[in-house]
């Protein structure tokens, strides 16, 4: 009995030790990224593994200037906010009507939307670029935001419609009998009930817009509208020599992401798993 217990305890400690070792290995890239960003060139060369002796902020100053970090951060915030707000309204409104299946045509629209979930952007990138060029939307926030919204419609309508089907019909029916218009039913009954899925959608849309690379690469290359991933793409294309500056640039972009993760972690896990399980 004693022996069994002891073995069990050692098994447990061994398991926890494995977890810790795996976690340390897993996170070591971020440790290197953090420490290198504060090191001068000499320290990188002679004490690569050590924690920096003094925090050398020069790397950050250079990275902020060369990346035009604040400007890009602002661009990313605008694009992400615009995308999230539009997705939230455009997709939830459409999904309410589509999921209620009022007429056969809506079923068709639903399939049209969700057939785009696996569509590679490459298929539409050039014609879309030409079309946006003609109406003057290339290198504008409008062009970028509206493309993001449209390209995400399939996925978010899919998530929303799945949820709408779980909302019981009775509430709407009695409201309609009282003479409520469709708009009011959506705004006062359906949309408030969508709260849990709204949170997931907001998180997924925000992550998607913030991290999107190929869409801005095609239609928003100019410096004035570049988002963070695109700026990194051009920044690292040019300044590859100094590793301390490179990691400072990486960490700067990581700060908002860490804040977002710590604040929204619950919703991110929920949103990502909901998205995966339904997608």
């Amino acid at each position, binding site marked *: 009995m004693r022996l069994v217990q002891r073995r069990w305890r050692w098994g447990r400690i061994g398991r926890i030790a494995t977890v810790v070792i795996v976690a340390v290995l897993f996170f070591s890239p971020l440790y290197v*990224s953090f420490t290198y960003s504060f090191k001068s060139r000499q320290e990188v060369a002679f004490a690569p593994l050590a924690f920096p002796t003094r925090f050398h902020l020069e790397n950050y100053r250079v990275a902020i200037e060369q990346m035009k970090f604040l400007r890009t951060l602002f661009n990313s915030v605008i694009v992400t906010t615009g995308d999230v707000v539009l997705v939230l309204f455009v997709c939830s409104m459409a999904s309410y009507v589509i999921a209620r299946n009022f007429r056969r045509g809506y079923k068709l629209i639903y399939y049209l939307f969700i057939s785009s979930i696996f569509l590679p952007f490459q298929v539409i990138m050039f014609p879309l670029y030409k079309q946006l060029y003609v109406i003057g939307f290339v290198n504008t926030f409008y062009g970028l935001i509206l493309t993001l919204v449209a390209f995400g419609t399939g996925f978010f309508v899919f998530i929303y419609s799945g949820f709408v089907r779980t909302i019981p019909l009775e509430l709407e029916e009695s409201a309609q009998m009282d003479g409520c218009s469709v708009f009011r039913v959506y705004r006062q009954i359906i949309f408030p009930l969508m709260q849990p899925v709204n949170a997931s959608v907001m998180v997924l849309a925000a992550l998607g817009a913030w991290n999107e690379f190929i869409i801005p690469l095609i239609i928003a290359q100019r410096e004035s509208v570049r988002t963070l991933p695109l700026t990194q793409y051009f920044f690292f294309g040019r300044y590859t020599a100094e590793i301390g500056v490179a990691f400072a640039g990486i960490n700067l972009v990581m700060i908002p992401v860490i804040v977002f*993760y710590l604040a929204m972690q619950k919703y991110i896990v929920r949103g990502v798993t909901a998205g*995966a399980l339904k997608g």
Partner: protein
Amino acid sequence: MGHPAAISRSGKESNINTISKSRIERFVLVLPALGLFTFFVVVPFVQGVVYSFTNWDGVSRTYDFVGFRNYLLLFSDPELLLPIKNTLIFTAITVVGVNALGLGIALLLNFQFRASSFFRSLFFFPIVMSLVMVSYIWSYLFSGFFAPVLGITGVLSNPKTVMFGIAGIALWRDAGFAMVTYHAALVAVPGDLIAAVTIDGASPFQKFRHVVFPLIAPAVTINVTLWLGWGLRVFDYVAAATRGGPGNASMTVAFQVYKMTFVYNKVGYGQTAAIIMMIVILVLAITTTSLLKRREVDL
């Protein structure tokens, strides 16, 4: 499901007017999504299909229709062999590796342990980083840390290892994502079922193979399909970490399509390649899902 007309008819003041009014209102609710989608996705898609039958360079005012010539050329284009091979290598490694690692970590953390949720959020963290950023972290690690400090040289600069290096980057970012899905599935496995087979003397491996695995099979189906779809479309990692190099050694299909269209000005041809790529992805994703779904029942 109640038909809207039936709902209105049961109301006191119902008449044809309110019915058609709500019909219009419903359409108005769908209109923004439908309009955006049509303008930004459907119209470009149709144009893209048309371009694939032309020899357009994307710049000239005119172009000629060439029938299926682009499609025929595509199937005998030796320059596409390497991108296809690379895409398949990347997809195979990520589909297998992400699922193995994700399930492994989920199982490792699947015991009474107070800090397990802390470790889960640690492993999950890379999912919020853009593929571009993760690529840069790793390309600097490979060149500025692995090579001079650990003595592992040239992972991304050697044509023989570059695709494995890129796939490794993807494994690091995505393992935590798969872990979360597997964790959700493992939590749903009933504890008394495990207890019952433990009393019956099942070994840990038997327990996993015959009890746990069949119950989490739907999560496997989902994860395999997801990473299959992402793997076959891989673009960001390659664009950021190597830009297809050294030479053309890490060129993938999606990146090659981009270069055909925007660098070599072969719009008609690039469009054709993109359409074939889409069809291949759809076919592979649908067959894999249905095969795995059928297996779920057998397990």
